[in-house]
């Protein structure tokens, strides 16, 4: 079930009414959320709900056993249970997401050596959201292993944490230590939070339906169709398509996150902010603290710091950065374009870090010129990587690189609708945060009846202006 569908509106409304009707009956409330979440997930694939259940049962059990081992100072036991959790979660992820990729890679490598290796391929659909919920449950067992939290004794609560539908299929990746206490606390229906949740959902729908879907359908998808269509683009056309894609990807994923956060807020839960106007970033480090925050912080906490972080020599730190970001790339998808994308970001972060060491005080002077230059430079570093991110294969990326060198020919024509949406998209993105806060504040203070009227207008706009059909969210493929 897609967030941008009418079915989801009805689904969310039903869950909302049942949740608050049973707000004083915790087992009933949580059972309902669990059933609703599995039903929500089952709309994509009922078979794959079994993976969700396996991950839930394994990590619930491993969490309890880990704590027991820690309590009796059995470090070997704790390691074994941690190993089991890693094996099951990464095993599922590896099997369903990476098996075919690596088998094909091995086959091609051996073929170059003149050896024919014919390993069977799984050739199955990637279970939706597997990259998200496996990382979420892993953070639970790792945190217990590291002594950062104690396990829950309620299987029901843990199952709700793993399968909570607003963030199940594409994040934000929730940490157990943030979410479990919210499950244990009694919910309280507060009109201002309900209004705020609705505002988040409206904002997310606007980003998805009026920004991402329109730009994707009207411009990006045809430009980035395949190597042949990319080969026809000259540099100006490719730049415009890439600027549009940057906005599309942001609108799509940030829109999803906004709807997830808003949906959770309607049920009294707070999820971490996942996007924070990333194209305002003055540096690449800042960009990654504003874009897909829950994922980048997960990799920072559990991979980069796990590898040693910046505690060792400079060369070791640089190595850790590149490894962590290459893994970020691989997390996004089983394709060389993603691996290269992650490696590129790792290398750029290292180069910027080294360059910064040459600056007095390790930073540029505070001056509007440097601020603007930093924003533009960072945006283009990111935008270039998005070409790689969007290209379906390396051949297409090669065609795009050739196109970027071609400044001959005419400038592409863009319809006024697309031009308007791009301008509005970037303008609203770059506007001061306090304006957005003011807008949200005004919405919250608006009487409920007027909010209802505005909701009708918004729904008409969404369903009137979006492209025909339902466009899935980009991050569902990860």
């Amino acid at each position: 079930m897609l967030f941008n569908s009418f079915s989801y509106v009805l689904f969310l409304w039903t869950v909302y009414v049942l949740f608050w009707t049973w707000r004083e009956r915790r087992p009933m409330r949580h059972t309902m959320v669990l059933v609703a979440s599995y039903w929500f997930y089952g709309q994509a694939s009922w078979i794959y709900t079994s993976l969700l259940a396996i991950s839930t049962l394994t990590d619930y059990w491993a969490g309890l056993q880990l704590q027991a081992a820690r309590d009796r100072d059995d470090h070997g036991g704790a390691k074994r249970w941690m190993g089991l959790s890693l094996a099951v979660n990464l095993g599922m992820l590896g099997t369903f997401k990476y098996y075919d990729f690596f088998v094909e890679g091995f086959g091609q490598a051996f073929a170059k050596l003149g050896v024919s290796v014919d390993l069977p391929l799984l050739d199955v659909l990637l279970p939706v959201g597997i990259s998200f919920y496996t990382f979420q449950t892993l953070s639970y067992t790792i945190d217990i292993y590291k002594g950062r939290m104690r396990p829950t004794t309620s299987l029901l609560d843990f199952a709700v944490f793993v399968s909570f539908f607003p963030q199940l299929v594409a994040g934000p990746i929730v940490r157990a230590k943030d979410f479990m206490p919210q499950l244990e606390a009694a919910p309280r229906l507060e009109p201002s939070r309900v209004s705020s949740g609705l505002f988040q959902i409206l904002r997310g729908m606007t980003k998805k339906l009026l920004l991402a879907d329109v730009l994707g359908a009207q411009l990006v998808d045809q430009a980035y169709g395949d190597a042949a269509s990319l080969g026809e683009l000259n540099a100006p056309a490719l730049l415009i398509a890439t600027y549009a894609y940057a906005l599309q990807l942001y609108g799509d994923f940030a829109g999803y996150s906004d709807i997830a956060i808003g949906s959770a807020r309607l049920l009294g839960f707070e999820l971490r902010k996942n996007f924070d106007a990333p194209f305002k970033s003055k540096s690449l480090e800042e960009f990654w603290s504003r874009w897909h925050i829950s994922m980048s912080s997960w990799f920072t906490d559990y991979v980069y710091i796990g590898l040693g972080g910046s505690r060792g020599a400079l060369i070791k730190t640089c190595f850790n950065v590149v490894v962590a970001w290459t893994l970020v790339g691989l997390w996004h998808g089983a394709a060389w374009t993603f691996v290269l994308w992650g490696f590129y970001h790792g290398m750029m972060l290292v180069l910027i870090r080294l360059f910064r060491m040459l600056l007095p005080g390790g930073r540029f002077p505070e001056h509007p010129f440097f601020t603007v230059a930093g924003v533009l430079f960072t945006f283009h570093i990111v935008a270039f990587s998005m070409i790689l991110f969007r290209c379906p294969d390396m051949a297409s990326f090669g065609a795009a690189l050739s196109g970027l060198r071609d400044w001959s020919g005419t400038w592409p024509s863009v319809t006024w609708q697309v031009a308007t949406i791009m301008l509005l998209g970037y303008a609203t993105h770059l506007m001061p945060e306090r304006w957005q806060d003011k807008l949200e504040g005004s919405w919250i203070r608006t009487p409920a009846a007027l909010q209802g009227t505005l909701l009708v207008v918004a729904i008409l706009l969404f369903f009137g202006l979006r492209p025909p059909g339902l466009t899935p969210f980009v991050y569902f493929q990860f």
Partner: protein
Amino acid sequence: MTDATTPPNPDDHVGAVIGLRTVVVVVLFLALEFALRQSGYGMWTVQERSERFGWTMLPSQAAWSRDLTVPESINAYGFRDRDWNPPRRDPSGTPVADPSVFRLAFVGNSMTYGTSVDVDEGYPRVVEKLLSEEFARRGDPRRVECMNFAVQGYVFEQMARVYEDVIADWRPDLLVVPVHPHDITPMKPASDDADYDFREQILRTATHDLLQQEVIDKWIPPVPNPETLAVARDYQRIDDAVTFAPFSKDMNTYWEAYLQRLDQVAADLAAHGGKLVVVNLPRWRKLFQPSLREATSRLQPFANSRETVLLVDPVPDFVAPMQPVVAELQAQEWFEREPFETGAERVPHAPGLHHDMTQLLRFDPEGGVREATELQSADKTLFLLDDNGHYSALGHLVLGRSIATALRDGDWLE
């Protein structure tokens, strides 16, 4: 079990949960829906996507034609006709013919569907009425039943599938296949073409129609999907070719495929005791280009070589009655400029007319009516002049008479 720490909550009732917002949203949508329905939105006949047929009509719906002039009632089988008894079957479940009924099944597209014409005025009903009178005159006790299986936009491949999947079980005595050159083109898959009002995911509302008509169709450019564009271009190329030169060499492949498929249907029909009636549909264009080649040139050899196939050609019955209309249109110089040229490559399009077809309208390029002239011969036209070539009620009457006469004179009513 309850939450031990739950504080007293002032909003402790379901009404507070559902909230004023929900009530306002529901009431506003209902009010909007009601108001829009009064304005005609949401009243068109709805189609569904279909893997097998491309599209089908939503069964059991009472709706209106696209121009909101004619009510359209779609039966439980998804066709614009009265409700039918299910096919008869023997004890083993095999379909058998009903000996008390002389059954004619009509396949087709908008020409047979009766676009903008009342269902009782469509030519299948005319045939039914005339043949019933003929059977009564002959003292034949069988009831004549004409079943209309036409769906707007169908080409012959879709009609053949309707025969195979739906019609065959009724074991019709006669299957009537009207032929327009366009029918030989390949079947188009269901698309988001604005011509088809596909049912939305949950329900199709007047609000949806308003958005589709006033916002999406006017303001949102069609999504330029290269894959579907290529397919659409391909179909357009075939459509253009079949419109302007349906009997050219390029079209041979399509005619051969068409006749082969028609032969399959005829053979299946004959195996169950049925016969095929092929009707060469009169075309608007023929009125202005008398030398225009007709599909009969392809169909006659086919019909002559098969005992169970009859070819009916009502074109001569259309040409003479339309002369006053053609003469008046020509006298008013309606064809002096694009797109009303005659004899040129373009089809002489129907002039702009009010739906009551009594006034000719000249339009300004910027939109709006520049000039209106009374059309004296409006009541004689056999074509709906405002939609580029479907039949008027009078046209259906003439067509139905031609078919009934051919069946009677050719001894095809046994």
